[in-house]
Every structure is written in structure tokens, then in C-alpha cells.
């Protein structure tokens, strides 16, 4: 049976992990490669690297990092953040990323989804979308959730699927950092609307939150950062708990 995926997310700046990471047994917790290898050993199903580097030089460092991760890690990983050109995508995939995720770029130029799907295949094109509710309506936000748009979340993910996105990574700005659980109602609606996998992001606080997003949110994968980095939730225990609750999980 196809299993639900547990996806740790690492924020990267200038080739280093950004947020404090509370990992014993690592020589260098700031080294994304070591951290990625550790997560892989613990049973993470996939990894996401979010590049928050602003400068061009930093982006070259990211491409080098992608190659070092691909050398060491034998599970799939996605790279996102600041991707603005087909050339960026080519570089990251060529250096060893399995998938890339794009966000603002796709909102500004939706046709790039078609271009990327034709050139590289839908399977490696992840549409990341940040949204929050304004007057009860889910609106897409840009620039890491800072800039609101008038675009309806559900219209946008449907359009993105039609244009060639192979997967949706939905982050609820209302839930991100709250540790009160994922935006399961919106997730379930997206999951029913599209026929491509959906990754839940934003709000993970407890093991039950993951169980709920797979059951109620109908998510195919769940992404989290701090609960894993600070060992509030350990992946082997989480996966056992999910399995005990009857959720299809790789152990």
C-alpha cells in the first residue's frame, strides 16, 4: 500500500541550516548534509530544503549543497525558495534534487508550470502555496506569507494542477507556528479537488496532529520543521504511533 510520508523541512541560508537545531550526536548541526543524513536514518520519507538565501553567490552555494546532499542521502528531496528561472530549475535537478518547488514565480507567471512540466516532467514540479483566511476566505499570500493577493486558494491549486504541477505543498499561515494542528478542513477540500498528492504544512505540534492531517485532512504527506529539529517529536516514535492508528506508514 502507498504510505503517507513524513517530511522534515530544513531552512537553508548560505549553505547552512538556519534555525537552531537541537541534535545530539551531530558533529555539526548547522550542516544540512549531516542533518539530512540523520533524518534519513531516523526514517524520514522525504526531505524539503527551503532556501532563504537572498544573494546570487548564496544561490551557487545552494546548488553545491544540493550535490552534497544527493551524494550522501538515499531518500528523495525537494529544493524550494527563490527559484525564478528555468535555468535555476535545470541546475538544481541536474545537481541531484529530485523535485523543485516554486511559489511566487508560479503566481506571477502561471505558464511556467506548463513549461517546467513539459521540460522536466510534472513529477518534479511541486507547487508551494502559502495562504491564510481573510474574512473567512482562503487567500494566497506571497513573499513567505507577507503579501496578500486576491487569489482564491482553491482556484489556484486547481489551475496549478491543470497547468502541470505534480504535487501541492500547502502551508496555512494561520496554523504555521501555532502547534495546534494542520489546516485539515482546507487540506481535505484541496485533496478532494485535485488528483495529485498534497503535502500538509504549518501547525504540527503533536503526534496526533499528524494522524489527524492524514485522516481528516486527507493529506498524502506532512511537513514539519521545529518539532523535529528540537526533538519534540521523534520520527521513529511518530511513525509507530501512526501505524498503531491504522495509517499506512513505512517503518
Amino acid at each position, binding site marked *: *500500500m*502507498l*504510505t*503517507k*510520508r513524513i517530511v522534515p523541512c530544513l531552512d537553508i541560508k548560505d549553505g547552512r541550516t538556519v534555525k537552531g537545531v537541537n541534535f545530539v550526536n551531530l558533529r555539526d548541526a548547522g550542516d544540512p548534509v549531516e542533518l539530512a543524513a540523520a533524518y*534519513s536514518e531516523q526514517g524520514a*520519507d*522525504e526531505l524539503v530544503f527551503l532556501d532563504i538565501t537572498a544573494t546570487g553567490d548564496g544561490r551557487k552555494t545552494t546548488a553545491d549543497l544540493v*550535490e552534497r546532499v*544527493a*551524494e550522501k542521502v*538515499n*531518500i*528523495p528531496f525537494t529544493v524550494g525558495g527563490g527559484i525564478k528561472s528555468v535555468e535555476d530549475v535545470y541546475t538544481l*535537478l*541536474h*545537481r*541531484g*534534487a*529530485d523535485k523543485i518547488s516554486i511559489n511566487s514565480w508560479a503566481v506571477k507567471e502561471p505558464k511556467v508550470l506548463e513549461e517546467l512540466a*513539459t*521540460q*522536466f*516532467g*510534472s*513529477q*518534479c514540479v511541486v507547487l508551494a502555496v502559502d495562504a491564510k483566511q481573510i474574512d473567512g476566505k482562503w487567500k494566497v499570500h506571497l513573499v513567505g506569507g507577507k503579501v496578500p493577493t486576491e487569489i482564491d486558494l482553491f482556484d489556484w491549486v486547481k489551475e496549478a494542477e491543470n497547468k502541470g504541477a*505534480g*504535487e501541492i505543498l500547502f502551508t496555512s499561515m494561520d496554523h504555521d507556528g501555532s502547534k495546534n494542528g494542520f489546516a485539515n478542513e482546507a487540506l481535505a477540500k484541496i485533496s478532494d479537488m*485535485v*488528483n*495529485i*498528492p498534497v503535502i500538509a504544512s504549518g501547525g504540527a505540534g503533536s503526534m496526533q496532529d499528524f494522524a489527524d492531517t492524514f485522516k481528516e485532512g486527507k493529506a*498524502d*504527506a506532512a511537513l514539519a520543521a521545529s518539532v523535529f529539529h528540537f526533538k519534540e517529536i521523534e520520527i521513529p516514535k511518530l511513525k509507530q504511533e501512526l501505524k498503531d492508528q491504522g495509517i499506512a506508514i*513505512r517503518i
Partner: protein
Amino acid sequence: MSKVVIIDYGAGNVKSVKFACERLGLNAELSNDPEVIKSADKLIFPGQGEASSSMRDLKANNLIDVIKEAKQPFLGICLGMQMMCNYMQEGNTDGLGIFPLSVDLFEGNEVKVPHMGWNQIEGLKTPLMEGLKENEHVYFVHSYFVPASEWTIAKANYPEAFSAALHKDNFYGCQFHPEKSGLAGQKILENFIKM
């Protein structure tokens, strides 16, 4: 040590396959040169992207006959395996015809497409699957599938049984990505390299 060549005809992410070989202590060579490919002890044939353009790339590199006539152990991965079949629904494309099979699109509302993530494999046959447990998890990313047949050496369900791996003579294929399938995938690559 045997010479492993990864056929590099422009398919994406061939580096991951090379790195997976390196993790097994093997320096595999990337090449599109027919002579280098013919001289290999083992051949790995990755694939990623769209079927008809990938077949065109193979043709442009004069690799069609080189692959069909290969006598050494040969492993196609993902689209590589699909291209070893007779016919691919994707782009209405003729394949290499090594396996007399068709490759069809997953259809219907029952499952999401692409089939993406870790799924279990069963009905495992040696030598490629030597040492693996039944129902081991491996990583898949694909929208088209090869139905189960007499050449199937591992099956997965999505929702019906399909070929997760194929074998005929010296030719092997994996629909999943052994290079991305953790220790299980590493074992499969190791089995292949030892052939």
C-alpha cells in the same frame, strides 16, 4: 572491479544513480558513447521525463540498437524500464521492444496520479531481489505503469497489481528508484552490480 556505465542520453538526475553506485564503493561512468557502452560489464539505464522525447534523445544519440543488442546485465530505472517495453501510451510512443508489454496511464478517480511515494513490493524473485523482505518499501514516482506479466519479478498495488520490476534474460527493470529507496534500494543495486 567491474565496469559499470550509466547511459547518459540527457535524462534528468543521472547523478543520483552515480552517487548511489559511489555509496557502494563503485565509480560508475556516465556516457552516451556507443563504444564505451558496449565495453561495459554492467549497464544502468535511468529515465526521467516524457516518453516520446526520451526515445527521440536515445535515437539522436544512436543508442537504440546498442541497447537492444546489449548482452551484459542491464538495469532500466523508472522511465528507463518503461522504454524497454513495446509501446508507451505516453506520447503514443514505440519503445525498445525488449519486453513485449505496453505501458499504460493510471486512470480513474480511485488513485492520485502520479503514484508518488513509498509503496510495498511483493512476489519478489531473485537474483535482483535477493535478500529483500516481502512487502519491503521502495520509492516510486510515475504516472504510467506496466501491468503484471510473466516477466514480473516484483509487484506493487496501486490499486491493482502492476510490475514494480521486470526480468528477461540479461535485462532487468525497476519502476521504482533504487537509488532513492534507502537501504532496500541500495541492496537491489548491490545485487545488480554483483551479477
